């Protein structure tokens, strides 16, 4: 395990493009989180111009709502796609440069190769979760006046939701990389699936004319997005009486995890069967 991770580290430690992409992702994510409130409130201002009763400004950075809010913003498609592209690149590079062949020739088994990529995904998810957790704590402390331990920790399980979301989304992207083996094709098809194919499927299945059940909630990417479906909006709850998600349901994490396991199984099987 440690040996595989060490080999993986050697592959990325001096790989400039990897770090540039990681840096960009980080910049994108943190500026998105820091600007979210400003963007929402300018949208509110915009709407208020047409409304007789103005909607109050939102404050998303206080405990405990911040856990849910930041998890929500960090797991929208546009943000998740970034690390997914990095993972696809790391995997398809091995096929493009035929280094997977050389790894196997030198004595790595195909299972070990797959494990090394899974370890990188796991590590990336852990590191991002820890960083996001620290960021949330810092921002939350700066925006909350009446601090109690229970208030700070109340919705902190949402960070676990972030971990599951990122982990499973990255496994999906890995699946595309291993099956298609080509960088451009994998990125294009994965992006197409996430942004176009699945949303179309979603609205098709959701339409009451097609199915009366909730099968649409079982779509792979949608099931990830449902882990934290909405930001925390106590205002909306009060004003409109909407009953929106308030806590992380661990049950909703099971669907994407099941998909991820299935994909890992398929990748393993294909890797065993197919020539390198």
């Amino acid at each position, binding site marked *: 395990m440690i040996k595989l991770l060490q080999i993986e580290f050697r592959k990325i430690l001096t*790989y400039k493009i990897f770090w540039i992409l990681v840096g960009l992702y980080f910049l994108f994510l943190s500026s998105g989180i820091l600007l979210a409130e400003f963007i929402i409130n300018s949208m509110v201002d915009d709407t208020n111009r047409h409304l007789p009763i103005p909607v109050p400004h939102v404050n998303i950075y206080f405990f405990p709502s911040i856990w849910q809010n930041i998890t929500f913003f960090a797991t929208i498609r546009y943000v998740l796609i970034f690390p997914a592209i990095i993972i696809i690149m790391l995997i398809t590079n091995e096929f493009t440069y*035929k280094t997977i062949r050389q790894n196997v020739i030198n004595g790595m088994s195909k299972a070990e190769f797959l494990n090394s990529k899974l370890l990188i995904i796991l590590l990336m998810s852990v590191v991002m979760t820890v960083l996001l957790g620290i960021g949330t704590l810092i921002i939350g402390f700066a925006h909350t006046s009446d601090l109690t331990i229970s208030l700070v920790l109340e919705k902190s399980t949402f960070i676990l939701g972030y971990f599951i979301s990122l982990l499973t989304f990255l496994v999906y992207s890995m699946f595309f990389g291993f099956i298609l083996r080509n960088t451009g094709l994998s990125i294009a098809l994965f992006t197409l699936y996430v942004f176009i194919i699945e949303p179309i499927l979603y609205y098709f299945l959701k339409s009451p004319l097609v199915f009366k059940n909730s099968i649409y909630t079982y779509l792979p990417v949608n099931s990830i997005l449902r882990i934290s479906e909405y930001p925390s909006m106590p205002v909306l709850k009060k004003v409109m009486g909407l009953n929106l998600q308030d806590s992380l349901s661990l049950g909703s994490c099971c669907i994407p995890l099941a998909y991820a396991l299935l994909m890992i199984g398929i990748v393993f099987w294909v890797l065993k069967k197919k*020539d390198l």
Partner: protein
Amino acid sequence: METVLSISNISKRYGKIQAVSDLSLKVRQGQVFGILGPNGSGKTTTLSVILDLIKADSGTFRWFGNPPDKESRKRIGSVIESPNFYPYLSPVINMKIVADIKGHGHDDIDRVLRLTGLFDRRNTKFRTFSFGMKQRLAVASALLGNPEVLILDEPTNGLDPQGIAHIRELILMIAGQGTTIIIASHLLDEVQKVCSHVAVLSKGKKLFEGRVSEVLEISDSYELSSADMKILSDAIKTYPAFKSLVATQEKIQVYFASDVDPGELNQFLFQRGVTLTHLSERKRSLEQHFLELLENNK
């Protein structure tokens, strides 16, 4: 001698093309074994099978007497097809990855980089290397940690004459240490210069296998000429070991059934009134043998 690699009845088909057909080989310890064949004869496919990159449709192979696994591959240093390295990493880091996978320390890296003349470029990215340097790095990675077996697929491909000479010297030096070496090549000259044993492949079939020196020792023809070619050709036909001849204007080429001593041949002809103006032994080269074999199997 101990058998390092034994291949039994391996076949591999890609769609309509039979890449390897019922191939069996035995490579013993200390041999420099050449797999010789034109492009597309199944050399790389065979090497890919024995390195677990592709699965054979049928047949088996054994390394060091055991069914193959990743541990046996760690005892083998190999380069297949093109040099495959991470282009955005330096040679040193690429070598460290190889060493880590093989479970070696890193203390051998400087030695193999020096051996292949890449030490000065050890920290520049692989991407910036010329093809020849990439090829030499591939050889360096195969040499890492003194493997028991070295597999080289077209090791001098794309090198300049100096580079070719250098790599061949290196191969001979390593062979001198008792390392078993398997070389796939389409260059006869290469096999002739460095190999002790050879198997000739064509269209996935093994045509011939044996010691390189045995093949080269066959002297099966002599070139003769004399002032009167008519008397010469009549006289030579009475020689006991005579088999056949091909006559041209200036000389005749004579084939014999067994080994012939040129002195005795000369004396025999002189006794029959023929004075030779030209006598030369035509050793059948591996190249001729190779081409003949290919010709016969069309």
